């Protein structure tokens, strides 16, 4: 049994059910006068039916042509992925508060270190130069409205 694909189909069916209920709450209307929930309900129904077909097909042939759970999930550096994502979400949350320059220097310090450890002075120099180049390119060159944050520029 390849649990990955079983769980995948169940999750899609759950989402479909959720969207169908949401669509009905918004109001399906009639075919003559479709309301706001018309399209969400139909899209949810379509997704649910397709996920069900995929599930039945998978159960019947035991997902023979698919990769095994081990092939999909083994040898993944989960630590790096989760930490990278966590740092990116934190950066997003603090982007407006810290501002572009401080936030980005801190983010790059982490990102340049995460793939392979290098001396701190190399990482710091690379972070400062990259942030500076992006600031000049986007803020000054393209007039992007990057947040000023605590530095005020």
């Amino acid at each position, binding site marked *: 049994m390849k649990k990955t694909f079983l769980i995948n189909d169940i999750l899609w069916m759950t989402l479909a059910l959720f969207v169908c209920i949401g669509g009905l709450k918004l109001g399906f209307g009639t075919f003559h006068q479709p309301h706001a929930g018309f399209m*969400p309900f139909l*899209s949810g129904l379509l997704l649910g039916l397709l996920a069900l077909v*995929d599930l039945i097909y998978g159960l019947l042939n035991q997902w023979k042509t698919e990769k095994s759970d081990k092939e999909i999930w083994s040898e993944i550096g989960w630590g790096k992925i989760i930490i990278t994502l966590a740092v990116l979400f934190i950066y*997003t949350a603090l982007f407006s508060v810290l501002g572009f320059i401080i936030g980005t220097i801190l983010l790059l310090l982490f990102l340049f270190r995460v793939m392979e450890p290098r001396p701190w002075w190399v990482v710091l120099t690379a972070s400062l130069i990259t942030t500076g180049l992006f600031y000049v390119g986007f803020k000054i060159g393209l007039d992007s409205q990057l947040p000023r944050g605590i530095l005020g520029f």
Partner: protein
Amino acid sequence: MDLIHYLLLGFSVVLEPLNLFYCFTGVLIGTLVGVLPGLGPVAAMSLLLPATFHTTPVASIIMLAGIYYGAMYGGSTTSILVNIPGEAASVMTCLDGYQMARQGRAGPALGISAFGSFIAGTIGIIGMMLISPPLVNFALKFGPPEYFSLMVLGLMILTFLTSASMVRALMMAAFGLIVGTIGLDNISGLARFTYNIPELLDGVGLVPVVMGLFGISEVLLNIERKTKREVFTTKVKGLLPTLEDWARSGWAILRGTVIGFFLGILPGGGAVIASFVSYAIEKRVAKHPEDFGKGAIEGVAAPEAANNSAAQGAFIPLLTLGIPSNVVMALLLGALIIHGVTPGPLLLSQHPQLFWGVVASMYIGNAMLLALNLPLIGMWVQLLKVPYVILFPIIILFCLIGSYSINNSTTDVAIMLIFGVIGYLMKKLSLEAAPMVLAFVLGPMMETALRQALIKSRGSFSIFFTRPISATCLIIALALMVMPLLPWFRRRPGLALEQKETT
């Protein structure tokens, strides 16, 4: 005569210094993102979209279009020298291009790829010039049922060609339709699935979705894979293909051009599919199909020609019908709307300088690309040596700033990260992102067309089958849905590719 008159108008537009500058910038950035794995034309165009707000619509579209077809040129360099496709449309070039490089023939591989791209691109532009005006007259007959059915057909073609499992591709299309319903309802103004988040009232932005699915997910995969890139050759010699190379590639380029152009026009088609199909056909018609995958020059020439002519052909449905045939065209649609230009049948008469300016810019852009990709190949090779540890933080930063600067909203950045995770999981489960994105873009248009058609017909679905254009589209869509059930049709190019990739 009209055609020549309009073409001259186009050249007068593109030869203005500002437009010429944007054309060069576009093709240069296009080549750059094509060469660099992980940052494709979609991400680059999303990123630079806000930068075009300050310029004219013509210059903006010229630059964005240049990024697209420029990436088609640049993508082949990475495929041939590193065996990693710079962007999705260059996947097929890896198969024989890299083998040619291993045999010491990187130069001819790069040369035929650039010349083939140039020939195909030029023929594609001529086709675009000839087909667009008559298509506009045809498009004026379109009402809501026709638009809805055509979009259904587009989605069906894409799901049919891109994935081994049509059911899963359709699931992704349905997911895209759902995401497309988030925000205010176009007709009643009711908020849908917004959960009191004001930023969601306008719907989920295309740029964060695309950057997440294609940019961030790719970075996450690269963090996981720990792949080591090896540039196969440092000194590229003999870029000019020999007479024998030309003899073997000539017909392949022409076939690739024609296949690519027509697949590019089809809603749901595009450069990626065109390169898959042209490679499969080339292998089928070859005298020595056993050479494919071992360094056959036709295996480089055909997909490269196809992806370039498809890139030109894809502009036709957008500029004449207002329907984007792929994700890149969806971005261009967004750019046109932001600049106050509504693409569709009236574009040619209301904004001739834009349409013909873009067409003329493609001629000049293709010539610029030939110069950028052949004499300057050494520079791109050097660029490939930049380690991924340096590239990936920069790619992430591009994505973060790109998604933020559209609305100056951190919610958009969070949405991008969420779609990055979704995209990563989709890739792990071999679920296609392309049908999802196209359905997401077409969803609101489809919904409006469907509801308008039903209101018009007083709730009767017969309106879709009694009008000839609509009925034809739906019958073809239905046929495409049924075809995978037929045993002999299981050997279609998309499936073949997927099997090749998994082995």
